């Protein structure tokens, strides 16, 4: 058993990151975004797509500028103070033209996971309701409805979605990918029952195929974020580790195989940042050292390009009327 766990942990500990990444490695691609909460890279074109969440739209970066792709998403409010307007959240491409968008602007049970055929660059934007298909996880006598489809992660067979509706369960849902389309979207993993900690948010697939979930924990509690590995096929929990991070919002593996997390740190957003998660051994126990790579102002999502370039969305801090949201580009080499 131990051997299995050590092999698993090795997946995200191939080498140590350097100390804090130099500022000259970081470039602001887009500024003035309004609570951006999702990022994905389009296969084939390499265009970066961003959920400009409170602006109710999905944009793509073309020649360094934001071009609206899908507009008029519903908007809701998250938090009790500070409060954030949110609309579209997680993004994932099923193929070059098929984009899945997790919603955050509707009530639990009414929220939609939407599938679009995206227009080519330079084409007219489409409306949010012009989706090819949509899915919801309605409530029932036994279950609360789901909403805030925050992070999307996929392998060849399934798309996984972190949900924030039923706090007694902490669902990760999934849909099968069949012939390039999503089918059979349903609740999959009750992460809170598995880990006894709230709120799955960050999600990715490990190089070996495990589903990796960042459990956010309570936003009023620091240091309770978990990293949990599950069998992506049957949902069996494989490994659950404390990270010392407070509010993990995104997880991603760089092409070299190292695992990174963004930490929002609601209670002290100045402590937020990008972290490499490094395996440690404490006697017979496995632990994690969360090594800070970059300071970030309210990071929300990230995605690696094939060449190792990392894109991160941050909510940032408004400057007067100018929104503080940014899309950051981190040079390859992490």
């Amino acid at each position, binding site marked *: 058993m131990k051997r299995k766990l050590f092999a698993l942990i090795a997946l995200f500990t191939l080498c140590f990151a350097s100390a804090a990444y130099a500022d000259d490695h970081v470039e602001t691609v887009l500024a003035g975004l309004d609570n951006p909460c999702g990022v994905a890279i389009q296969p084939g074109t390499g265009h970066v797509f961003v959920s400009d969440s409170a602006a109710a739209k999905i944009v793509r970066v073309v020649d360094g500028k934001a071009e609206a792709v899908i507009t008029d998403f519903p908007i809701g409010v998250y938090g*009790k*103070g500070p409060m954030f307007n949110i609309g579209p959240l997680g993004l994932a491409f099923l193929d070059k033209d098929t984009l899945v968008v997790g919603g955050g602007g509707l009530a639990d049970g009414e929220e939609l996971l939407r599938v679009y055929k995206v227009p080519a660059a330079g084409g007219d934007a489409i409306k949010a309701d012009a989706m090819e298909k949509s899915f919801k996880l309605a409530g029932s006598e*036994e279950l609360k409805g789901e909403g805030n489809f925050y992070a999307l992660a996929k392998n060849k067979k399934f798309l996984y979605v972190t949900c924030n509706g039923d706090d*007694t369960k902490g669902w990760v849902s999934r849909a099968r990918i069949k012939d390039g389309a999503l089918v059979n979207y349903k609740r999959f993993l009750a992460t809170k029952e598995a880990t006894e900690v*709230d709120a799955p948010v960050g999600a990715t697939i490990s190089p070996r195929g495990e589903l990796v979930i960042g459990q956010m924990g*309570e936003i*009023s509690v620091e240091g309770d974020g978990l990293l949990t590995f599950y069998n992506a096929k049957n949902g069996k929990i494989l490994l659950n580790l404390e990270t010392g991070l407070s509010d993990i919002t995104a997880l991603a593996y760089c092409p070299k195989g190292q695992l990174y997390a963004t930490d929002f740190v609601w*209670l002290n957003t100045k402590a937020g940042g990008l972290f490499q998660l490094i395996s440690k051994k404490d006697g017979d126990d496995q*632990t994690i050292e969360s090594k800070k790579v970059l300071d970030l102002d309210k990071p929300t999502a990230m995605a690696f390009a094939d060449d190792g370039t990392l894109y991160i969305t941050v909510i940032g801090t408004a400057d007067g009327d100018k929104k503080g949201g940014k899309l950051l580009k981190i040079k390859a080499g992490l």
Partner: protein
Amino acid sequence: MRSLGSAFLLLLLVASSSASAQEYKLKYPLGLKKMKIPKDNPLTTAKIELGKQLYFDARLSRDNTISCASCHDPKKGWSNGEAVATGVRGQKGGRGAPTIINAAYQTRHTFWDGRAGQSKFGANDALEAQALGPIQNPIEMDLTLDEVVAKLNKIEGYRKQFQSVFGTDVTSDGMAKAIASFERTVLSGHSPFDKFKAGDEDALSEAAERGRKLFFGKANCSACHATSSFTDQGFHNVGIGMDKDEPDVGRFAVTDQLGDRGSFKTPTLREIARTAPYMHDGSLKTLEEVVDFYDKGGFANPQLDEELLPLEMTKEKKADLVTFLKEGLSSSDYPEVEPPKLPE
């Protein structure tokens, strides 16, 4: 009344020699997980015994009237049976005395507002951080640390035990470690709920089983009363006291986050039938009142927790929920402890 010895058996501690460094092997009641104990404060027989003496000793207060046990009384569910805590000179605090049952599992924060927390990630020493707080609180025990250390160093029995356990005279650090060690032995598990979870389908009455389903389902209780300790260690605003002109702002005073205004730490529900009155201000006298309160969706205010919504449960469902709380979470192995002989 049980003897001291049997009380220890009820705590499921395995008695061992009195050697100061003798490790105490804690046997966990059914349903409880292995706890995280600070590496610099391992459980030992002598330290737990010392901590128990300190816990029950009113000399830790200015006028020798208030001990930890005054407000966290084993005979009253390790709480005090009153709406708020009462300190030296009869002074009343603003909040109720939470039970310390299973406080060992509160590794991140203690106090209703979480103002005492672990010293660093993984230290798991929130209990140590809490232990000295009430001693220094002017309306609870009202002594400075220098005063209480000097006072206890005049008691030969304490000085000898501290030398044996810590190799020093009485220190505040040693006091905190000893009291926390004792508190880690006050455990409640092996309840009908735990037996049910372990596979005994007859452990819960029919009404309690219906209540269990509500608790973990539609009634949404387990959104916050999660884990085997029935607390998520988080802070939530349920609206209690928020109708006052100057409400107790709870966690907000610690974090300065608007979203924390009126939030208080989720208490454990283990042995809840013994710990009335309820809520952080003791304003609800019975579990029936508590369930009615939540059935209405708490008290509306801008920071009301999003998990609170009107439930519109029938009278029967509310009764089932209360039955689960009373029957399901009360252990036949309740941690009864008698006050020890105190050193002179």
